[in-house]
């Protein structure tokens, strides 16, 4: 039985360093290649020695697919391709291809230049790695090789985020990456109005879904937005400073659009800053990839580009000490390094200030700690930092919640679900729900654990049109359950082709001679009639016994049952002792055999 194997190297019952290996139809695919924000040691990257102990990965992988540009999905890519060694194709969408190297370079700078780590990938490695990238368009069917095909779908998580359908023959797997089923202010798919991500009813053997918010059913987005604006507004009113740690692309744009419109409407004057560098560049990407944003933005972009902000200015680090209220968007989003962490340290001591965490924080990050109520922090080994400012959590990260995950399963109708990118306890809960509602198996492997799913693919075959048409004419399009009509043919297997033709055509096509196997059998019979009468009595007898068969009494003194020939002769000595000669071919073997034993029993007396 064919099998599909799935092994997470990262993101198995965990969030961070997403990296999932899939073996399907003899092909090996790596889905995402991320880093873990919670670790600074070896655990930061997936353990590629699982694939091979020594040597390069190229021989073991047919392709690598990156779902979107977040570092927990692509952060280990240059390490994997340039330091471990992989030269095969790496697939990602155009926006991901554009943005991913910039985030990788930032990541490298923070790690090497600021923290002084060595043995890390270099700028050149990032460039070399990106040369191996093959861009993917949405809905384009990409033929990786003759058998393996992949197709990207809109995931609505961040600009360019994609889900991917991987297919070999009739076996297939869908990998969601991170996705969002609720359309928002800047992302949304043209296909559907009511959800952001969208996929065909492609009935994959396995759906590999993220499950960040496996147990959450979020209240309406409108409420969350109102709540967010209210908190920001209140804090500004009382003269406080608001820090919003974000990742440069994604929620940042969403919240900027939100605040921009609010500032405009309320005529607010407090400055909004966006931390340096990335802002303008990031917004430029959104402008150039406007086709990836939602319908509304796309429709109006000629008149007014939503990504040209009036109220939001670039941030300079000196502004942090300015008096008076302000709102600052700063990177990164989990307060684990960089500018957001610096500002946080400055502002943490004042209870008038506020930090709003708009997304998920990985364990080990400061973001995670303060969200769990920790009020005293050890920051980089220095004195403890007293956290007095208000800490708010508001889930704006564009992940599907439990409802969204169920919705996607309904869309795709998979035969199995496999959960990754979530916490074990929450997964457990969702797994139960999925199994109950859809009656399908749901798996949640830990890192390094392999899930094997046996598939049962049907075999595509080319049937000769003659045979098909003949059968459809005889049997009609719908088979009759009471009298199943079977069709017969010969399957010719040559190299990779499978052809189903009639047996006669098969002989012809293969250039084979037909071998006739015939049987002749003499049956002795006592019947006091003339030979022709006996023959007629046989005819009448068979007529009554064999319903639904073609029986003919031919003028040349034979009876034919289908293609079985029956002749009568009598011996010279005893005219009542008849000899029946039965002759049939192998194709009528069952009937011939039946007839010979039937006639041996003699003819019933009642025959006329």
């Amino acid at each position: 039985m064919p099998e599909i194997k799935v092994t997470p190297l990262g993101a198995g019952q965990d969030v961070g360093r997403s990296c999932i290996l899939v073996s399907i139809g003899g092909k090996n695919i790596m889905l995402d290649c991320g880093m873990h924000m919670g670790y600074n040691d070896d655990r930061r990257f997936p353990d590629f020695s699982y694939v091979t102990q020594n040597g390069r990965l190229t021989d073991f992988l047919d392709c690598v697919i990156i779902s979107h540009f977040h570092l927990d999905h692509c952060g280990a890519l240059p390490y994997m391709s340039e330091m471990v060694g992989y030269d095969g194709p790496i697939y990602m969408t155009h926006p991901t291809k554009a943005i991913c190297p910039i985030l990788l370079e930032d990541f490298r700078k923070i790690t090497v230049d600021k923290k002084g780590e060595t043995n890390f990938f270099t700028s050149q490695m990032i460039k070399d790695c990106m040369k191996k990238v093959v861009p993917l368009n949405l809905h384009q069917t990409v033929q990786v090789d003759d058998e393996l095909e992949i197709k990207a779908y809109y995931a609505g998580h961040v600009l360019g985020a994609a889900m991917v359908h991987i297919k070999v023959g009739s076996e297939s797997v869908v990998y969601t990456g991170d996705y969002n089923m609720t359309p928002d202010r800047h992302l949304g798919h043209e296909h559907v109005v009511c959800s952001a991500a969208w996929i065909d009813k492609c009935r994959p053997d396995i759906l590999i879904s993220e499950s960040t918010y496996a147990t959450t059913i979020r209240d309406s987005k409108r409420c969350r937005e109102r709540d967010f604006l209210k908190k920001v507004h209140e804090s500004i009113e009382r003269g406080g400073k608001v820090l919003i740690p974000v990742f440069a692309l994604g929620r940042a744009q969403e919240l900027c659009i939100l605040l921009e419109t609010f500032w405009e409407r309320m005529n607010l004057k407090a400055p909004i800053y966006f931390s340096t560098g990335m802002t303008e560049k990031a917004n430029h990407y959104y402008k150039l990839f406007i086709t990836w944003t939602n319908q509304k933005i796309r429709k109006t972009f000629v008149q007014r580009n939503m990504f040209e902000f009036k109220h939001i200015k670039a941030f300079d680090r000196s502004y942090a000490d300015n008096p008076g209220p302000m709102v600052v968007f700063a990177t990164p989003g989990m307060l684990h390094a960089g500018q957001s962490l610096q500002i946080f340290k400055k502002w943490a001591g004042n209870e008038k200030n506020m930090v709003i965490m708009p997304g998920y924080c990985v364990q080990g990050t400061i973001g995670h700690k303060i969200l769990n109520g920790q009020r005293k922090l050890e920051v980089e080994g220095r004195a403890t930092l007293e956290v007095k400012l208000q800490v708010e959590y508001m889930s704006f990260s564009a992940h599907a919640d439990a409802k969204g995950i169920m919705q996607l399963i309904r869309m795709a109708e998979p035969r199995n679900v496999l959960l990754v990118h979530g916490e074990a306890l929450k997964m457990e809960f969702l797994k139960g729900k999925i199994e109950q509602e859809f009656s399908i198996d749901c798996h949640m492997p830990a890192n390094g654990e392999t899930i094997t799913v046996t598939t049962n693919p049907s075999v595509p075959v080319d049937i000769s049109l003659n045979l098909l048409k003949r059968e459809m004419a005889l049997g009609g399009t719908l088979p009759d359950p009471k009298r199943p009509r079977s069709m017969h043919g010969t399957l010719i297997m040559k190299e990779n082709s499978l052809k189903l033709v009639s047996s006669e055509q098969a002989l012809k096509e293969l250039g084979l001679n037909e071998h006739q196997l015939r049987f002749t059998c003499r049956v002795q019979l006592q019947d006091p009639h003339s030979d022709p009468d006996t023959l007629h009595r046989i005819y009448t007898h068979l007529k009554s016994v064999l319903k639904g068969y073609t029986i003919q009494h031919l003028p040349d003194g034979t009876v034919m049952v289908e293609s079985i020939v029956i002749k009568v002769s009598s011996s010279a000595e005893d005219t009542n002792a008849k000899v029946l000669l039965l002759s049939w071919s192998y194709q009528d073997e069952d009937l011939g055999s039946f007839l010979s034993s039937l006639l041996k029993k003699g003819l019933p007396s009642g025959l006329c």
Partner: protein
Amino acid sequence: MKLYCLSGHPTLPCNVLKFKSTTIMLDCGLDTTSVLNFLPLPLVHSPRLSKLPGWIFKDGTMNLEKELKECAGRVFVDSQPEFCLPERELLDLSTIDVILISNYHCMMALPYITEHTGFTGTVYATEPTLQIGRLLMEELVNFMERVPKAQAATCWKNKDIQRMLPGPLKDAVDVWTWKRCYSMQEVNSALSKVQLVGYSQKVELFGAVQISPLSSGYSLGSSNWIIQSHHEKVAYPMDQSSLKNSDVLILTGLTQMPTANPDGMLGEFCSNLAMTIRAGGNVLVPCYSSGVIYDLLECLYQFIESANLGTTPFYFISPVANSSLEFSQIFAEWLCHNKQTKVYLPEPPFPHAELIQTNKLKHYPSIHGDFSSEFRQPCVVFTGHPSLRFGDVVHFMELWGKSSLNTIIFTGNDGRQRLNTGCAVSRLGDDRLKDSFRTVLSEPDFSYLDALAPYQPLAMKCVYCPIDTRLNFHQVSKLLKEVQPLHVVCPEQYTQPPASQSHRSDLMLELQPPPMPYRRCSVLNLPFRRRYERVYILPELANSLVPTEVKPGVSVATVSAVLHSKDNKHTLQSVPKPPPAPPSKKRKRVMEEPPVVLAPKPLLSGAVPLEAFLTTLQKHGITEVKVEEAGDGHILHLQAEDTLIQLEEDGTHIVCDNNEPLRATLRDLVLRFLQKL
């Protein structure tokens, strides 16, 4: 399979393909050359045009001077310009299931088809094709509605009158079916029926046919369509790699300008432009608002400084100028590699963004409003419509036509030859094609002399720089040799040299077998025999099959199965086991029940080798065998059993009386040596 040809214009095709019970329209081109028979629509009152004399029959019998005006010896219809629509009588257009669009020029007749024929299907196009097509339609509607004309001339269309008119009016075809431009409402409704597709996306139609657009490299988002079932492939028009093994190739939109090297032409364009400006004249470039203009602007971007044109204003005037320039920048995914790389920086893919930023290029929705106050001369103006019959270009013709300092530069092909241009055939091979990608390669055309006719006499200089990098005949022949389609279908114009150059046999398609030509209203029966269909064998049945090798590398298995057919998908599953026969009361009669044959016996092949067979018989205790040679084979006499076996090359005959078990044994032994099919 049948092909209905609804347009005779080789570059603005409209064909309908009936294939496997689906009806597919391939492109929906609008033949706009009909507008050349009409007077231009001026934006502001033109004393010259309004003073043109009416045309009167020589014998004075009929007076059509209200409808027909004469200018420089040619007769024009004074009415709202009308278009020649695709043929509507050839087949019932409401039966069309889908319309496939190759590029934005080939969809201009869409509202006529989707809104007025009972069409209920879906239109497939790529996103750039839809967006830019919408702009071109919007522009067309705007041009017409801006200067409404009360008069609708119809008398001249009367058959008896038309045949008395001078050419080319006399020879215009189907003038009664000519229609005025559609409305914006009809455009919106038509475009709401468009379903977007991406390159290489596979779309299933009714489970019977799969369609897929591939990049053709002709224009932003332009596609070649591959229409295929599992066993048949129709390519329209084409792309090399995926074209291989096509059964039918429908070929339209070739260039026939083998002498005009596009890069050379761009150079000529620039030098003519610079010369005119230096002499203090103005340059008018009639063009569509999307397409070649991006190329021209890119070329000028590199040229402006070196030619010392830094201070010359460049104007682009169209109701959709701004949208067109903006849209061109957001389709990076549809562009060539070089342009994609720019977006990664991030920089706009086309340099006209910089021309706009530095104020070198200005765009306006029309000559009214801001333009009239900011307008400086000498200058370069890009504007439409290329037919010179409507749009802002009419104004500039009236304004500049009288001075020999000014120049008009045509970049489209010469329509007189009716040879060139059209949809999506393009350079060889996808990759090479993308590298040499030049957004739009040419405009569907108007003869520039015909276009200029109602402005004669003209003092303005006239330059003709056809820019067309579509495939020429030499390239096509080479390509066809490589991809070897079984049949090629093309407009009849491609099968003979142009009338004006009848000796140029290189300006036609010569193929073996010869291509099948079509013209307007042709119905072609495509010689196409389907022989196979895809069927799926369900796993249970597949596992029960027993293959045997009949030749090295070739195995066969006999299959008995139940066929299920649903939505044009066929599956085979195992024959269900018959329910056990109900216990019969009359046991004796059971014997007489004829056998229920579930599977017929397979055909046999091969031969029974004598020696090996004898050995096998021996193993089964049959030792007394007398072998006689007879004819082609041998007769084996099993003396103890009084049974004969005749072994021949292509047959075996077992004669065995009254010993059913023996017969069955012998049968099975013989079968061991034979292959079953």
